[in-house]
């Protein structure tokens, strides 16, 4: 039934050097099932002894057809699919999608919802960086940190479960605001985390930052110059580690990020070590944002009351016949934004995540495209890996912080 795929050597000739055709270099297949590729990524590695001559990433093993599927769903159904793209950043994916829908419809988000969105997005950033830190160190042979970072991540997932009922696929942020207000005890739980986490972060740094083995394995490894990083569309911590002080939260503020006081960590060296430093500092800056947001959490509604695009409030349904009809029509037919397209970008833990939505005036999106950061970041892998040792390739792939769900969509 399944016939083997025939790919002739001629078709792939332009991907390898002439030396490979003469048999002077070795072609090695790494993945798709390999513990250090963080998912199903295949790398075709050309080796001269232990030195990497070229790397050709082969992606698509985790393609789920999310964009195609979204075209067949209503706007509020399609949002559920965004969670599954970058499974370490569901809140951020929801946020990008919702911001694009809000740009299409002109929905106004109340200040309380904005602040809660910021708190959750920053908690998500910390949890994603924790996974990265643990798995990256695991790649390099330090297994203990993995256990610590997952302990702290669990605390964040508990907060997500508290607000939405789900640990990972939350779909808590909705177009026009939030699903519902946060439960009692939310601010205490977040503040507990803010108080507890800096101490833990210090412990991690004590284990890693000055560790001579870690430094030897990461400094001057996988260097990406400032120019290359910009040319190849690399974003997020990788771009900042190469010396570009760009952060979507500062450059294109959304959800009121311009009201918070935080710094963008920048490093100049552009190596694996610099990426580590940037990500650790980002966790600290995220904590600062969370603390400010919790301190100034406004009261009031958590979703817009624009009746064209929002369902009526629960209390109204019991008393008002029109509200009941509206409720029924909303959840069966959905809402229809006006014709046009919108593009909204957010800063995900991996870089610029953007949603492009084209509406044809019906309740289903005509086309949704997610500009995912890992896709562009992975593109720069050959640039970073050329001339490195095969053992360092693992460190370089890890430092990109790819999520294959984010790459393949």
């Amino acid at each position, binding site marked *: *039934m*399944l016939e083997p*795929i*025939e*790919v002739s050597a001629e*078709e792939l000739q*332009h*991907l390898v050097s002439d030396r490979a055709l003469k048999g002077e270099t070795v072609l090695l297949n790494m993945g798709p099932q390999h513990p250090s590729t963080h998912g199903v990524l295949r790398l075709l590695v050309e080796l001269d002894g232990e030195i990497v001559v070229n790397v050709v990433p082969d*992606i*698509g093993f985790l*393609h789920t*057809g999310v*964009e*195609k*599927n979204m*075209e*067949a769903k209503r706007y509020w159904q399609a949002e559920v699919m965004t969670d599954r793209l970058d499974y370490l950043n569901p809140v951020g994916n929801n946020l990008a999608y919702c911001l694009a829908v809000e*740009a*299409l419809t002109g929905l106004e988000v109340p200040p309380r919802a904005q602040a809660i969105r910021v708190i959750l997005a920053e908690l998500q950033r910390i949890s994603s960086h924790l996974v990265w830190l643990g798995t990256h160190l695991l790649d390099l042979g330090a297994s203990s940190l993995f256990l610590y970072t997952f302990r702290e991540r669990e605390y964040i997932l508990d907060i997500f479960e508290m607000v939405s009922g789900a640990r990972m696929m939350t779909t808590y942020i909705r177009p026009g605001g939030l699903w519902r207000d946060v439960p009692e005890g939310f601010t205490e739980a977040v503040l507990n985390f803010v108080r507890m986490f800096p101490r833990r972060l210090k412990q991690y740094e004590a284990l890693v930052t000055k560790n001579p083995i870690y430094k030897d394995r990461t400094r001057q490894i996988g260097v990406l110059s400032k120019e290359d990083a*910009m*040319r*190849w*569309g*690399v974003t997020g911590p990788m771009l900042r580690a190469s010396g*570009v002080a*760009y952060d979507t939260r500062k*450059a*294109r503020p959304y959800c009121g990020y311009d009201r918070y006081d935080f710094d963008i960590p920048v490093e100049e060296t552009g190596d694996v070590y610099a990426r580590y430093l940037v990500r650790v500092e980002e966790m600290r800056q995220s904590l600062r944002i969370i603390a400010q947001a919790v301190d100034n959490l406004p009261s009031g509604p958590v979703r817009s009351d624009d009746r064209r695009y929002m369902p009526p409030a629960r209390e109204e349904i019991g008393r008002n016949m029109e509200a009941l009809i509206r409720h029924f029509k909303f959840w069966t037919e959905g809402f229809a934004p006006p014709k*046009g*397209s*919108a*593009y*909204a*970008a957010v800063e995900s833990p991996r870089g*610029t995540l*953007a949603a*492009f939505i*084209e509406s*044809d005036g019906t309740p289903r999106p*005509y*086309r949704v*495209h997610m*500009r995912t950061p890992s*896709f*562009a970041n992975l*593109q720069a892998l050959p640039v970073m890996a050329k001339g490195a040792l095969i053992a360092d390739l693992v460190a370089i792939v890890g430092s990109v912080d790819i999520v294959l769900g984010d790459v*393949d*969509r």
Partner: protein
Amino acid sequence: MSEERIQQMAAALAERVGGEVSRDNNQTVVRVARERIVEAATILRDAFGFQVAEDVTAVDYWQRREPRFDVVYHFFSYEHSDAITLRVAVDDGETMPSITGVFPGANWYERELFDMFGIPCGGHPDLRRIIMPYDWEGHPLRKDYPLGYEEPQFTFNFDEIQARKVQGKR
């Protein structure tokens, strides 16, 4: 990011490459002819300081409009935080000039265009399928490509559908 600045740039660009400026929700859109996209990208990079082709994608207007596709480019400048959108109409079977010579980061995005929409990019250094398997037939994000469902199997027609599943498309 100043709105006025972007409007001025869009107008200047439209004048130089013969385009048309419009506003679409939160985007400033310049509609450019297919033949002049490389020229437009070069102007954006050299004259207006855009450093990256942040996103390249397409929309299929099958049976709604001729020409069939719109290729949508989002450019961004880290220095000034400017964002601009370029739209190019392409018909089925036409080749889109590749902008990888100007913005190398568009490489995988153009491969995705080819893979998912069947819009080939002329002058691309490595135009292969990227997401779908090498031997895949068709281009999944086209509107005439069926979404594909699994037929529900019941006791009375289980064998019939099973036989169709096994010999049919994999």
